[in-house]
């Protein structure tokens, strides 16, 4: 049976560069850093307080930043997709690591209760519900949480729903807001680099917390062409797997993570891979593990294909990070340039990857988007310029 082809017809972001794709593109290709101090009374005890935050959006205690960031990115994606039909044949798929934790942190740390926030249905599903409400969507509305791979899971599941014929159009992506609790946990875990994230660097020492949102409009190809849309990128495949090993530590052989890459690459000639958008968290263990998995699956090609890590520029936005990486890959595929991994200066001797130190021309081919999360949740996407 021939699989339904699924394309991206629109995308939108809210990143530490600001609102929208144009600022994102400019920031990526100018290699602009974004880190600043996370100012909050209950972050002061953290040794590392650096974070990549979105400063353009103001919220008061009646709003959730997560919902606001999601709605802004979705609007850009929908406008960009020239307003696809969003009704019973459309669905919403949101990936998030901590959902509207900002709303409940108001309750915890400031004893404020958000007046427009209905706690009855949890503090996580409200993001997807808000998107569905905004666009009158009456198809599937789902919220995925697999830690830092949540965005990729949401996008892959949206693709599956289109291929199963359940919907024609999907709004999908990821969002995570700043979280006092999360930065305290990462700090206690020793997972933050006080000098900022340096993926794959010899001197890497942890990640940098971030926030933001990134959303796509996916459509089945026929649907898009019937609307006279020029598809931007085609979503080719995905691979899921789980380590079943440890809540925070990846399984050392990388067998399962490698399997998720293999699944995404099923039927693809490895010589046709033109770029790898790494998960690249900047922690000692994770980057070495990711490099090993890429080497195991790609063999000789792993040292020739350009690899970049978005987190070096805009930090680690948890459940939004993989969706943001997808959006960054789309920007690269449309401009035929791959952005640099800016903070990385000296590659770890044990990492045999061609990490991009300055912006490079990008050849046509397939782009791999890795996401490996807490709990050994692996989700890998494969894209190609349409």
């Amino acid at each position, binding site marked *: 049976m021939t699989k339904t082809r699924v394309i991206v017809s629109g995308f939108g972001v809210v990143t530490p560069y600001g609102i929208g794709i144009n600022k994102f593109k400019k920031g990526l290709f100018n290699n602009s850093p974004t880190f600043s101090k996370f100012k909050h009374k*209950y972050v002061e005890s953290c040794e590392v307080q650096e974070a990549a935050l979105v400063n353009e959006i103001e919220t008061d205690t009646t709003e959730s930043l997560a919902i606001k960031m999601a709605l802004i990115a979705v609007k850009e994606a929908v406008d960009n997709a020239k307003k696809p039909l969003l009704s019973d044949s459309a669905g919403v798929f949101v990936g998030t690591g901590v959902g509207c934790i900002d709303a*409940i942190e108001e309750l915890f740390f400031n004893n404020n209760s958000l007046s427009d926030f209905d706690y009855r*249905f949890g503090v996580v599903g409200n993001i997807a519900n808000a998107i569905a409400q905004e666009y009158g969507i009456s198809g599937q*509305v789902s919220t995925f949480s*697999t830690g830092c791979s949540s965005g990729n899971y949401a996008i892959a599941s949206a693709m599956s729903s289109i291929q199963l*014929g359940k919907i024609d159009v999907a709004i999908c992506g990821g969002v995570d807001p700043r979280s006092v609790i999360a930065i*305290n*946990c990462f700090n206690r875990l020793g997972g933050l680099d006080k000098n900022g994230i340096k993926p794959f660097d010899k001197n890497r020492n942890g990640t940098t917390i971030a926030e933001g949102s990134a959303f796509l409009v996916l459509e089945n190809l026929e649907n898009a062409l019937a609307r006279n849309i020029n598809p931007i990128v085609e979503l080719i495949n995905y691979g899921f797997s789980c380590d079943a090993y440890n*809540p925070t530590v990846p399984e050392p052989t990388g067998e399962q993570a490698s399997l998720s890459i293999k699944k995404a690459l099923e039927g693809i000639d490895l010589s046709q891979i033109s770029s790898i958008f790494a998960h690249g968290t900047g922690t000692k263990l994770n980057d070495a593990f990711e490099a090993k998995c890429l080497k195991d699956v790609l063999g000789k090609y792993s040292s020739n294909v350009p690899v970049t890590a978005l987190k070096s520029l805009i930090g680690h936005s948890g459940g939004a990070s993989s969706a943001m990486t997808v959006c960054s890959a789309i920007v690269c595929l449309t401009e035929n340039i791959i952005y640099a991994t800016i903070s990385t200066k000296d590659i770890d001797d044990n990492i045999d990857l061609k990490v991009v130190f300055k912006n490079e021309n990008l050849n046509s081919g397939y782009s791999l988007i890795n996401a490996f999360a807490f709990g050994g*949740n692996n989700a890998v996407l494969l894209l190609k310029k349409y």
Partner: protein
Amino acid sequence: MKVSIAITDISILLPFADSVSDLWSHMQGNNTLDEKQQVYKINNFTPQKYLGKNGFKYYTQVTRYLISSILPLFERNEEFFDSEKFGIVAGTTHSAVEDWGVLAERVIEGGSEAISPMETFNFSMNIPASTASIRTGAKAFNITLSSGSGAGYDAIGFACDNILLNNAEKVLACGFEVVGDVVIKSLFDYFLQFNMPFGVPVGEGSAVLLLQSSEHLEQTPLGVITAYNTGFISKSTSNKDFIFSEMVQATLNDSSISSKDIDLIISGNVGKNNSESNTILQLSNNNIPISTFKEVLCESFSVSNIIHIVLACLALEGKYITSTLELFKKNNEQASNNSSIKNILITYEGDDGFIFSTIITK
């Protein structure tokens, strides 16, 4: 699309029962809930009973609840599981909020250093499902779905989709909730405002279904899912009834049956006049008995979603009770009860907009 997904085992942990036979005894006992008691918790929960003497010390309560229903089911079926083709999807409405409450207390008391190293990952909502995969070796995927009031139904949908897509052969579709201080505090305004925000008391616990393709079964299935659909009704939508009835009709069509073939409707309704009740009363036309359950089992959110399917499996054995809710009284007085149930329609409409319907057949 017609499907054939078998339900081959069930495990539950509720305030009233930790086995299906206890659940049925409770249902038969016509135990109405004390509405003055707005929250029913699992009293005297002893994790050792479900998790063994070791291995749970650092689990949070949500993780303990989830694993307490997963492990007994896993142990009963271990010989049939192929790790690589075995996945876990856990629905939860309130997810990790109680764990976030604990972590916030630590931070307020003593900053980052007050968090124990074994608690540092509990901010991530997927830790209970990840722990379940570690305990059971499930390697196809472990996912948490926190899709509002229908998170458990969404877990069932995800499980079925991924069995159809061959991403897994066997999937545990779960629901889990802890109603602790944070959830109660968060809901408090609503309790004051509405007395009971859900119409019935709130409960907690966990429930698990073992789902697999009905081809090549090792066991006799308890029931078979032949169609399932989810959707969403926006608050501003004017044609709510149309959207709900269209979803139910699509589910009947997918299952290749008509309303005449339905022997029983099990509804998540708590006596509220809404699109769901309008649709099922019209569909029944006083001929099909309607069963409801939250008035005797609480609103346990994602757990109730899974229990809904458990009750369908019991009904296929002739074990069901018709609704005593006033809304369905006339229908149930006229509809004749049938001890030979073959096709069951399950329906749900949440106040947040989540809607679901499925057909469970013998």
